[in-house]
């Protein structure tokens, strides 16, 4: 008889497990949260704790969602309004992108831009930009152009800052490499700083897409017109709260579409930023 341990020869396998709350897959987690929120919402309205004018029940909201959805699909007046807002948002975004990018290059690439332009931009950026809405309406009237201007105005600064930061992002080594190769300022900008800064610039564009929506809708609230913002204000003034909820939900789809279009272009464009560098092999 030997006194070898009784477990001799057996593999000591064990499994590391996450806690239950960390193991819920995304789709299920999202569903659970959604159901919980709607259930509380339903309970609150059903028990009469909140007036239906302030908070409509989920059922009423769903009915209005279907009503507005049907109106949109059949191409009725709501679709025209949504289209007006879409055009406003797109124009605003394109103008913000063009101006923001140009100013960003000026600020990020030249000392003059950094020293002279940036302080004024920061000063304007700290102002509550929505307060400029009456000015734009006074200057450009009640049609779409004043809304486009406000939307672009609100969204521009994020792109300026992101572009400038992106141009600073190239490392000291990379700049030295380009200098040692005799690269001109233009070559360094186009071949090194711009591509390095692209992820930053896209982040700026994403932030701008949110700002442009806020600007367009604010413009429509304050300056009337034929957009979705005007519809929302109209429904609100009629105390039609479920309609306001439904309109906001459809409006958010427009914002999401813009955001995810930018994200999609980013993934197509910046293929090199997707995966992290694998560990050294030798």
């Amino acid at each position, binding site marked *: 008889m030997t006194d070898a341990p009784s477990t001799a020869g057996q593999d000591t396998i064990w499994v590391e497990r996450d806690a239950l709350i960390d193991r819920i897959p995304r789709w299920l987690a999202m569903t659970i949260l959604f159901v919980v929120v709607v259930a509380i919402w339903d309970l609150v309205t059903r028990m009469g704790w909140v007036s239906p004018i302030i908070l409509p029940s989920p059922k009423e909201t769903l009915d209005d969602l279907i009503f507005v959805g049907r109106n949109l699909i059949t191409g009725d007046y709501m679709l025209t309004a949504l289209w007006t807002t879409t055009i406003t948002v797109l124009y605003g975004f394109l103008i913000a992108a063009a101006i923001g990018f140009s100013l960003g290059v000026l600020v990020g690439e030249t000392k003059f831009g950094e020293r002279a332009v940036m302080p004024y931009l920061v000063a304007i950026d700290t102002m509550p930009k929505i307060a400029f809405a009456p000015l734009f309406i006074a200057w450009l009237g009640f049609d779409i152009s004043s809304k486009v201007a406000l939307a672009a105005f609100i969204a521009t600064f994020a792109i300026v800052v992101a572009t400038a930061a992106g141009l600073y992002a190239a490392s000291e080594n*990379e700049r030295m490499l380009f200098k*040692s190769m005799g690269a001109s300022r233009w070559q360094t900008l186009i071949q090194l700083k711009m591509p390095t800064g692209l992820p930053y610039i896209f982040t700026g564009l994403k932030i701008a897409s949110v700002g442009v929506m806020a600007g367009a809708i604010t413009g429509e609230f304050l300056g009337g017109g034929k957009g979705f913002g005007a519809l929302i204000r109209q429904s609100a003034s009629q105390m039609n709260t479920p309609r306001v909820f439904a309109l906001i939900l459809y409006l958010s789809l427009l914002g999401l579409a813009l955001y995810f279009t930018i994200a999609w272009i980013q993934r197509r464009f910046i293929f090199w930023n997707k*995966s992290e560098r694998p560990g050294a092999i030798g």
Partner: protein
Amino acid sequence: MLMEPRLIEAQSTAPPARPVYEIQRLSKTYARNNLTALTDVNLTLRKGEFVSVIGSSGCGKSTLLKIMAGLLPPSSGRVVLEGKPVMGTRPDIGMMFQHATLLPWKTTVENIVLPIEIREGRAAAKAAKGRALDLLRLVGLGDFGNVYPSELSGGMAQRAAICRMLIADPAVLLLDEPFSALDELTRDFMNMELQRICLEREATAFLVTHSLAEAVILSDRILVMKPRPGRVVEEVKIDLPRPRTLDMINTPRFGEIVAYIRDLLGREAFV
């Protein structure tokens, strides 16, 4: 390997090769803080020679390299490459940095021909792709021409950077701690690769390094520098035979040389 413990005397029997890079009475003072980064540096790199500079941080070795690369103007002295004074960056100077700095949106081959693209345009760069592939084979990366740098390991990326440095067939290679970001095993291997490539191409190379062992195993001569003000205190000839092998690190001769230089650098270099 029997060698006498001579350190300083030259043991060359062949006639000295043609000088490639010549520096005379070089000084650099930064006007802003009136700091003397370099004073009275004299140096001649001959064809096919491998020279290293070693010293603590602040001894001016990076400044020296930048002046040699034409990235920084000297305050006084003469800096001459292949008979022409260095007054700015030049295509016949090849450089390598601590990090490979490959552009992630270009393939390995496109990265290697980047210096050609910058200086001579897209068409010339395209025409140079064949040469780039030859260079990749030289460094053992023949199959990696069309991959993006994210698929290369640290050592592979530095080998691609070697190719980029060699693509314009430079007269001198300036190496700024090129492998110091790699792990030690990879670093040893890369040093031997660097030696092989330099011997094969009869390259004239100048290396800035923090590693004594690396300097000794690679160099024909080592400049020992000290700070405040930055100056060359001694030039040590390394009489280990070529080609060098990693085994030499374990020889008494290697140990003697390392000890001698460490003594030169003195305690002050490390405080």
